[in-house]
């Protein structure tokens, strides 16, 4: 196996008696496409927050590229190459699409902290390239507040990529996207260079199995299984915890089925 980029060891997050994330250990090798799946409340989003640093761990260590980053604040982790898209779009609504991506890109392409507004050619070129990649080039000057839900998701991905991440965490990037948008996203993610390691939380299993080289199944805050997509598909425990209940609910035609609660 190649070098490990992200290593979680014994990572836990407790809210009082509730163990949202309980003693999770995962190693993600550099260049991997790692999917994190599990039913609602399995702790996937919480785990992401522990990796990005927006939430402190209760126990355990997070290691990035051989360095212990458990105690680092969020912005310093971001500077070390951790980038994310959030489950619920979090953008700068009053600004244009282009300016949103520029905020992320200008940190990478700064020309000696120039005070002159126009001296940002490199960053602007990068922004234009990213907008073409995610399919928003025609919307560059639109205020974000006027974008559709799917377009905002695409913009999230562009912003995350503009940080030039080593580790890209995608929290349900395809949620709310049309099938066309979703397959475009899969294409974009597949085309990312191996220098970007991908960890993705997704409910759309088509997206997961199209992308992932390895899969971790979380259940009630614990790792149920880590393995190749085929192993995961074949596992009886996973069927029971996740795929099983989902299908069952689907056939029972129950209004509050797990398939419906995508958040």
């Amino acid at each position: 196996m190649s070098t490990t980029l992200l290593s979680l060891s014994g990572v836990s997050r407790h809210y009082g008696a509730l163990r949202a994330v309980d003693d999770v250990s995962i190693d993600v090798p550099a260049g991997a496409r790692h999917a994190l799946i599990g039913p609602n409340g399995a702790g996937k989003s919480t785990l992401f927050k522990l990796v990005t640093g927006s939430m402190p761990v209760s126990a355990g260590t997070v290691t990035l590229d051989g360095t212990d980053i458990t105690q680092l604040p969020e912005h310093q982790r971001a500077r070390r190459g951790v980038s994310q898209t959030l489950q619920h779009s979090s953008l700068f609504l009053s600004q244009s699409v282009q300016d949103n991506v520029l905020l992320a890109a200008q940190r990478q392409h700064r020309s000696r902290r120039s005070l002159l507004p126009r001296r940002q050619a490199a960053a602007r070129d990068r922004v234009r390239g990213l907008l073409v990649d995610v399919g928003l080039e025609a919307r560059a000057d639109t205020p974000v507040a006027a974008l559709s839900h799917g377009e905002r998701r695409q913009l999230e991905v562009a912003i995350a990529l503009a940080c030039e991440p080593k580790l890209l965490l995608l929290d349900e990037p395809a949620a709310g996207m049309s099938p066309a948008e979703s397959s475009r996203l899969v294409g974009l993610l597949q085309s990312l260079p191996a220098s970007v390691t991908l960890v993705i939380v997704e409910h759309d299993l088509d997206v997961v199995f199209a992308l992932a080289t390895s899969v971790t199944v979380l259940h009630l805050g614990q790792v149920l299984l880590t393995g190749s997509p085929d192993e995961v598909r074949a596992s009886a425990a996973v069927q029971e915890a996740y795929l099983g209940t989902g299908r069952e609910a689907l056939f029972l035609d129950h209004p509050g089925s797990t398939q419906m609660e995508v958040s």
Partner: protein
Amino acid sequence: MSVVPDSSTDASGVGADPRTGPAPGPSRAARLATRGIPLLVLLVLLASAPLFAAPFTANTLSRILIFALFAVSLDLLVGITGLPSLGHAAYFGVGAYTAGLVSIHWTSAAPVPVLLAAAVGALAAVATGWLAVRSGGVYFLMLTLAIGELVHQLAQSLSSVTGGSNGLFGIPSVRIGGEPLTLAGYVYWYVLAVAVLGFLGLWLVARSPFGATLRGIRDNEPRMRSLGYSPFRYKYLAFVVAGGFAGLAGGLFAALVRIVNPSDAGFTTSALILLAVVLGGAGTLWGPVLGAAVVVLVRDTFGPQLDGHGPLLLGVVFVVAVYVLPRGFAGLAGLVPGRRRSTGGTA
């Protein structure tokens, strides 16, 4: 009272339209012309004002310019960074006292007092902002209020240095090349030159990548953190820059009126200047200039004619403005037909 600007107010700032990137030649030249020519005309008009205006008018215009610079420096905090401060006069006062003391005890040769005023204003912001910027919302408001009162009290009690409640008087007039500027017209030109440079500096800061970062923090601080920015560092720097420019305005004020009172650093001044920013339209930079003009005119020019009811009139103007112009005077620009971008956001 919502002092934080509504979305998209910054889109109509002075010369603010870099969103098309390196635009094709003709449109950029046209934009430069539509924006630049009125600005140039305004500058020429302002510069020629003392040639046909009475000395009193020149003095009023000087006051307006000074308070406009002060208001724009506060707009960097309120409108661009999203930090409404109730103690910004502290830095104005520190600058005014610095310039006054430098002029009295050392030299009043042209740029020295105002430059030192700006430097000491920034230093005061360095000392106090470190704490203030760690808080947000109402707590930031309260902390800045406390800082303002602290400076006000210091100005009152250190009477051997500041002249106490009598004020610091006997400030010599500014000298350029050894010649003291005594005529109101010359002082006005001096104020105009420094203020225009100050506006230019603030405009550059607001348009720079640094300014974009501040707007990002205003709109979505957690997201900026996840993009690798330390909001504290940027807010602190914005606070210091705003303090420096407020100090510069204070230095000009000392050169103009040649007496500095503790109240110039106090709550009333802070509140008035915040009023000017809100009245003009926070986040636009040029709106607060108009706001400051209205505040100065109502308080100093029309006020005396109303048997001291100037503040009352100011209050009425403010209430009406908040109802009629929720985005300040700058909000009116969004209504001008021909502006492409609707300021409404979602249509």
